[in-house]
């Protein structure tokens, strides 16, 4: 069943990991400014899996960067009510001088977590992404899919706040086209892994992709962003769809995406 969501049930704001309030983001000044995002309203509920789709260059990465705190909005505000968001980038971007385990320990090290705790935590996370026993490998010794799994484990390590300020708050995972550079079979396997990890950890996920099929397979909700400026066009509830219903949903989102793109042709 695909239903456009007109009014989402009001969840108490305090429990939502992210809330956008009319967020805008422009690059540059004056007339030459590029408006990447405009009046975006979006929220992610605790433990929810939201997929963000849109044409190339519509501002998906910009939106994630705002949530991650790597960039500041130029209008509106973002309310973050989670421990530090974990970010997985399109490329794994592992530190080449560290082993897989060392990479996972890095955020813990920077947070001043003692060595023995780091060790156990890294081993746990390696098990979670099914790379147990490969902790001593260097990034260049791993395949693309394995690297991306290490990056995921590292991101998860960064969200586990040990300093106490984020303790008890819901966690949030941001992913920017994490599987788009991988071959089809590896991508398929990793999508399954991500769903398993999502269920195991209960974290909320904001997942950016330009692959509508991936969005519908993974997400509970799919959000379509328009291009230049990026605005939320439509949202679909795609939770638990299988078989023909899933295919129908993919077609519907795809049609809407095409419409958004062709509206720029004029």
């Amino acid at each position, binding site marked *: 069943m695909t239903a456009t969501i007109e009014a989402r049930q009001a969840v108490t704001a305090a429990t939502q990991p992210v809330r956008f309030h009319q967020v805008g983001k422009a690059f540059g000044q004056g007339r030459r400014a590029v408006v990447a995002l405009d009046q975006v309203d979006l929220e992610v509920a605790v433990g929810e899996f939201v997929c963000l789709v849109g044409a190339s260059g519509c501002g998906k990465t910009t939106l994630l960067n705002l949530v991650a705190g790597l960039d500041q909005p130029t209008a509106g505000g973002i309310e973050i009510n989670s421990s530090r968001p974990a970010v997985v980038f399109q490329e794994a971007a592992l530190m080449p001088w560290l082993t897989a385990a060392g990479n996972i320990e*890095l955020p813990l090290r920077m947070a001043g977590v003692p060595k023995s705790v780091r060790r156990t935590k890294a081993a746990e996370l390696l098990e979670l992404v099914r790379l147990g026993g490969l902790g001593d490998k*260097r990034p*260049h010794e791993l395949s693309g899919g394995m690297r991306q799994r290490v990056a995921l484990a590292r*991101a998860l390590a960064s969200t586990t706040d040990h300093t106490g300020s984020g303790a008890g708050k819901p966690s949030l995972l941001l992913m920017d086209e994490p599987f788009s550079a991988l071959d089809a079979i590896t991508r398929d*396997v990793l999508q399954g892994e991500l769903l398993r990890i999502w269920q195991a950890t209960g974290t909320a996920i904001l997942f950016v992709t330009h692959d509508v099929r991936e969005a519908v397979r993974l997400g509970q909700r799919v959000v379509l962003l328009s291009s230049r400026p990026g605005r939320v066009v439509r949202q679909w509830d795609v939770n638990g769809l299988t078989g023909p219903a899933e295919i129908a949903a993919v077609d519907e989102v795809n049609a809407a995406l095409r419409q958004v793109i062709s509206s720029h042709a004029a």
Partner: protein
Amino acid sequence: MPLDTVGSVEAGLDALDTPVVEAKVSLPRRIVGRVLPPIVAIALFVVVWQILWAAAFWPEFKLPAPVDVGAQIWELVTTGEILSLFWVSVHRAVIGFAISLLIAVPLGLAIANITVVRRGIGPLVSGLQSLPSVAWVPAAILWFGLNDRAIYWVVLLGAVPSIANGLVSGLDQVPPILPRVGKALGAGRWGGIRYILLPAALPGFLGGLKQGWAFSWRSLMAAELIATSPDLGEGLGQYLHNGMSLSDISMVFAGIMLIFAVGVGIELLVFRPLENTVLRARGLTRAS
């Protein structure tokens, strides 16, 4: 897809993806492969030299016999004088290099990270790198007199710019994604420098260190050659200078060879292994 199938597909992918570890070549063979080519090259060089000497193209006082030069060096070895020559020069070079490091690292960090500093003194530092540091010898002697301070001044001006420039270019070449990742992982300003930027810049920095060593050795020899005085103690540069004063060409040749040997030896024993270890750990090994 049932879950266990997913698991086995994944395990299969991982098995296929894991790189095969190359069989190691046995140690004696590796040593032979490494050591033999340079030895052959040196032997060839000596043979050509011997032939040229035997043909007597040049008078004896211009081109000495290889045997005479060998005898010079052998005499230094048997009298133990070679140790004091090495000690005087190498300890100066090492101290000079260490001081250069202490100055160049903060300087490089400042140039790389602070725009005003980069614009202001960045070009100056690159320019100094191409100014031969021998040019500072006269000024240094006038300022400090004929003593160690004059020599260290020249060494510093040779080594500091190359080390600082190496660090700057190492930092400039860090892929911008890495500091972003660091920030996303919760790195503050200092955490980002300490845990991300510095390790990421290490290969470029090592290149700068290697070059800095070459420059400090070169500058030291130039300084020792020009600034000779009994108070300074006899290093390799002075030894070479004495050879010139005595018009003893075999001594001059011996001096050149010893200077060459120290420069190359330190590079091979210290910097090459360091660089190889760092590059290998990052999967950046060149064909060696």
